[in-house]
């Protein structure tokens, strides 16, 4: 008999969570207590474990999908061929669909799309994946295509070459979730400009001397300038949800930091409420905790705009991935011969090239007022 694994509750305030990833594939054997995937809210990531041993029959939820706590996340069976039970809400309709055989994959596809079997016209008396996809295509091709794409990822098979599967660390899972959002949602563009290093270097040196800072404040000061610009041009601190631009109220500045093997996006929330020195200190504080792998949850999530630098590696150009639900990530790189390069990855659904260039030109010069 098939066993459901349900979406767990992370905290009392969230009735919905996002499915981050699955660690198992359809058909794989799962032991009792084995981690099968992760869910997250904006506050925490939680491993989901199997309450029983079995074989993975299929996933009801998909990676990146927001689902209700307590809903079915995936099904386990005593053997790989066991059928996936129909959703409870369709049980009353079984009699009308009983004359049509429904294949296991079709059941899965129906469940993934929240469909009732009676809606689908059988093919040769059977409700197959093809029959369901025909129905979906008739309702809207994009949805069918999206389902196919998700299904193909969910059923990714092991390469036919010897190797070991290694579980991802929490940081690696976070990175995978970020690039998956970038791939699935953002329409990313990249633009860069050259600028004079001198004014910024001089400004940062004066600021450091005046305040007796140990850390060179150049990058935090540039990030502060970005925050100022984002307050003037609110579309820079925004994302797209549905067909509307969602302009954030706070400016939560995410700043990438490589700490050993881990890559973090350390976040200063409500950065617009700080003065210049306050922000430099606040950013130094979260970056120091990131370097020590001690970030709080609220400091590792919720970025609304981003800043990344690969100057330390003498990289002269890099094209950053956008953090989920952001439309702009600054790409700071190493300068040469008194000239620096400032780039930006941007979500072209939110911003156009002209807006990004105008922002970069402002960012290229310190605001000394």
């Amino acid at each position, binding site marked *: 008999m098939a066993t459901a694994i349900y979406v767990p509750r992370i905290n009392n305030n969230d009735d919905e969570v996002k499915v981050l990833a699955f660690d198992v594939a359809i058909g794989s054997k799962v032991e009792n207590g084995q981690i099968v995937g992760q869910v997250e809210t904006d506050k925490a990531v939680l491993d989901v474990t199997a309450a029983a041993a079995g074989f993975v029959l299929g996933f009801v939820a998909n990676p990146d999908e927001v689902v209700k706590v307590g809903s079915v996340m995936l099904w386990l069976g005593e053997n790989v061929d066991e059928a996936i039970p129909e959703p409870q809400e369709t049980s009353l309709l079984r009699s009308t669909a009983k004359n049509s055989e429904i294949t296991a994959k079709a059941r899965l596809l129906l469940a993934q799309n929240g469909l009732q079997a009676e809606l689908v016209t059988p093919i040769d008396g059977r409700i197959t994946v093809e029959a369901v996809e025909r129905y979906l295509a008739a309702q809207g091709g994009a949805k069918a295509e999206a389902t196919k794409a998700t299904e193909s990822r969910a059923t990714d098979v092991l390469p036919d070459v010897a190797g070991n599967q290694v579980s991802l660390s929490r940081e690696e899972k976070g990175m995978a979730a970020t690039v998956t959002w970038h791939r699935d949602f953002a329409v990313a563009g990249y633009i860069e400009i050259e600028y004079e290093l001198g004014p910024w270097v001089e400004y940062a040196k004066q600021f450091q001397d005046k305040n*007796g*800072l*140990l*850390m*060179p404040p*150049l*990058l935090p000061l540039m990030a502060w300038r970005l925050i100022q610009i984002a307050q003037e041009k609110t579309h820079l601190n925004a994302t797209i949800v549905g067909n509307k631009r969602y302009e954030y109220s706070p400016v939560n500045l995410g700043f990438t*930091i*490589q*700490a050993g093997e881990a890559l973090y996006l350390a976040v200063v929330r409500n950065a617009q409420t700080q003065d210049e020195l306050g922000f430099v*200190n*606040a950013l*130094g*504080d979260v*970056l*120091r*905790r*990131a*370097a*020590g792998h001690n970030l709080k949850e609220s400091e590792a999530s919720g970025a609304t705009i981003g800043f990344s630098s690969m*100057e*330390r*590696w*003498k990289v002269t150009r890099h094209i950053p991935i956008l953090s989920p639900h952001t439309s702009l990530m600054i790409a700071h790189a190493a300068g040469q011969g008194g000239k620096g390069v400032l780039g930006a990855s941007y979500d072209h659904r939110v911003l156009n090239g002209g807006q990004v260039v105008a922002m970069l030109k402002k960012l290229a010069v310190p605001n000394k007022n």
Partner: protein
Amino acid sequence: MSLNKEAIEAAIKARIVEIAAETGDDASELGVDEIIPATGLIDSTGLLELIAWYEKTYQIPLAQEEINIDNLGTLARMADFVLRKKGLI
């Protein structure tokens, strides 16, 4: 772990040499009174790594306002700061 000034300076220098090596720099000649950020041997990310290591190694959680040139600018100052925090000087 020895908590005398020379031993602390040596341990911090060894960590700086490791961090500098990550970006291909050699900090083996760093002097105890050289202003560390001014040498260019380790960048801001390297300094963050150093401070995170320093806090953990010597068990002295730092307030942001304590992270300044006067307290932590040189090997000698970093060693003195440990000893002051521990009440040993």
